[in-house]
């Protein structure tokens, strides 16, 4: 991948322009001047503008991922804000929210400010999510108000589920004053126990301790009840089970503040993929059965789940190249995201590409309260140019993350990001 400064005047020509916010396709070109949208449709750009021929390609909003782990501060050997940005751009993402389970965690206004300042040097927009509890200990509320003032866009103890229902209630109640989402990694730790993968026939055959779907759904149900009771904005991350989908669908009928996300890997894989004990597929919550996978797809179709988020979780080779019990949970996901979800949702399941682009751009921005009308004149350009139909095999060469823990190697993906434009920079895929 090549990353360079954009030309002063740039014209994106002959592409299909898809605006997921307005839900329409525009004919014509896009003119970018000084990194901002100068015109969409019929444009009157200077003759000496640099032109990119986008024939056969789709030009759309830059993707937004509201759930990534960039490991800074503390584990810069796995990822940094800069390497994470490159990984994001390779996947067409121009805006991300980083989870606070760093070392130390993002649990003070000062640490939020650290991310905000560092993010200024990055080629994408990076927003910190603050911890709900100090040191993510599950007991002591952080200074949410001050952290919000410093730029925290949401709060989560991601990775560590908030087990104490009363604590979750307090956090939701408190967050209503700033009206930002609270995100709880929904797993009941007692029910999850030592579970390493989804509990089912496959875990039984593999002899691996199972993590039952109800470890998630019971916790999701508790959180939904608490959200209804407190009036807070609850966002449910990485939904993995049919049972959780059912609870969310029921509660959304009466509570429009509930939002939810699903990861590409929960849409792409099922537990049968673990029969080779591939530690790159060890993830929390686990990939579950084919019925669960289908239920997640249905939940995207009917709006029960609002958006796609990768839960990009870089780990070192040493963390993964070991036996299944010792391997870390999590996988990288930014580079493979579009090819994976486009394959599953558009090519296999017949969704409209426009809807999938919405799940990757407008919808996650809406959850976090970010600007969604990205093609209006004067807006800082956040643009992704992709080939929606190309088939390609995902390989290590496509990874820009500092870590390589992906389960997608050798998988045939459909649709590929070719250029990403963000903060005056443009990336070009070379492979």
């Amino acid at each position, binding site marked *: 991948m090549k990353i360079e400064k954009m030309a002063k005047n740039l014209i994106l020509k002959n592409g299909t322009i898809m605006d997921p916010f307005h839900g329409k396709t525009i004919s014509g070109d896009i003119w970018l001047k000084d990194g901002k949208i100068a015109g969409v449709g019929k444009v009157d750009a200077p003759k000496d503008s640099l032109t990119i021929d986008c024939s056969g390609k789709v030009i759309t909003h830059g993707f937004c991922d509201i759930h990534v782990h960039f490991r800074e501060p503390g584990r810069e050997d796995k990822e940094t804000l800069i390497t994470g940005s490159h990984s994001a751009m390779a996947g067409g993402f121009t805006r991300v929210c980083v989870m606070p389970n760093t070392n130390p965690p993002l649990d003070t206004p000062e640490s939020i400010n650290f991310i905000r300042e560092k993010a200024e040097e990055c080629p994408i927009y990076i927003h910190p999510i603050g911890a709900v509890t100090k040191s993510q200990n599950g007991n002591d509320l952080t200074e949410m108000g001050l952290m919000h003032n410093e730029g925290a866009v949401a709060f989560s103890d991601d990775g560590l589920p908030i087990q104490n229902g009363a604590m979750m209630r307090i956090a939701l109640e408190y967050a209503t004053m700033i009206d930002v989402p609270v995100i709880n990694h929904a797993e009941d730790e007692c029910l999850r126990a030592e579970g390493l993968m989804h*509990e089912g026939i496959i875990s*039984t055959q593999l002899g691996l301790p199972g993590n039952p779907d109800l470890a998630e759904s019971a916790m999701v149900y508790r959180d939904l009840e608490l959200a209804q009771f407190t009036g807070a904005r609850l966002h449910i991350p990485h939904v993995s089970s049919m049972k959780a989908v059912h609870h969310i669908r029921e509660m959304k009928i009466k509570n429009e503040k509930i939002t939810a996300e699903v990861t590409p890997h929960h849409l792409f894989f099922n537990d049968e993929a673990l029969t080779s004990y591939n530690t790159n597929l060890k993830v929390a919550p686990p990939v579950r059965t084919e019925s669960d996978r289908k239920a997640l797809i249905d939940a995207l179709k009917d709006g029960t789940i609002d958006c796609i988020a990768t839960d990009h979780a870089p780990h070192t080779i040493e963390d993964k190249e070991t036996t299944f019990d010792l391997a870390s949970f999590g996988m990288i996901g930014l580079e493979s995201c579009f090819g994976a979800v486009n394959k599953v949702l558009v090519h296999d399941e017949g969704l409209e590409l426009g809807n999938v682009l919405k799940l990757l751009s407008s919808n996650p921005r809406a959850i976090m309260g970010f600007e969604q009308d990205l093609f209006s004149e004067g807006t800082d350009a956040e643009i992704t140019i992709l080939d929606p139909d190309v088939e390609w095999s995902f390989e290590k060469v496509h990874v820009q993350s500092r870590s390589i823990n992906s389960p997608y190697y050798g998988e045939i993906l459909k649709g590929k990001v070719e250029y990403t434009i963000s903060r005056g920079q443009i990336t070009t895929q070379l492979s």
Partner: protein
Amino acid sequence: MLQQRHLLGLEGYPSEDIQTIIDTGFKFREVLDRPIKKVPSLQGVTIVNLFFENSTRTRISFELAQKRLSADTVNFSASSSSLKKGESFKDTAQNIEAMKIDAVVMRHPTPGAPKHLTEFIDAVIINAGDGTHEHPTQAILDMMSLHEKFGKLKGLKVGIIGDISHSRVALSNIHGLLIMGADVTLCGPPNLIPPFIKDLGVKINYNVDEVIEWADALNILRIQRERMGLGLVPSVREYRAMFGITQERLDTHQKEIVIMHPGPMNRGVEIDGTVADGDQAIILDQVLNGVASRMAILFLLCGGKSSEEDES
């Protein structure tokens, strides 16, 4: 000679290969009855017994099988190993292979560890138990013992009694017996039988007396004392009353039934001493067949020549 290069587990293992191993095992049983219990079949073959978890009988059984076949063997156990110094599994494996060995017999506490090993090294891998996953050589010796007793496996009714959830012996036996056409019923406390296991094609019955009535043979698993009092088994007394294969219980049924146990036994808990020592038990035959069937497995996987070829 076998379709798969390694023996990692019996899930999906070809039935004809299980039969070949059992048949070859009976040939080696004859060797064990000779005054000089040794053949040169694996001369020059180096086998490492890589035990990351304590084991007495399985390790001795493998080691004896290797010595009877004239293989060179090296033992590695976790207690004496560099693992305590923090060396990774991968490094340990690759270091041992760098010393030019032909096969590895591995016991490891983690399910899938032998499969991982195949990714790191080129030697033939034989799984001697991987956590709660499989213990294929135990299942093969169990099947060999049943075959010896009944002359067949097809249609045989086998009850497996005890802690199924934490048992690699149970899982390998289930796969092997079903592949060979036997019927399997699992019996034990419901919280120690995985809810999804019936999808494999076994029956579940929590009433041990009904299982005794039904079965031709019982394979009684060790109930680990560590499980007692962890909320899994309320007490020894309760377990013995509900699932123990007691002399009294067998006497009530008055039927011919073969009693097996993979060992080590908790006499007075899952099995009475008199049952274990009684006429119906074939527990010591299992031990002998363990050596013979492991000889067969090593011979078939390590490219040993048949004794006829040696003699010619």
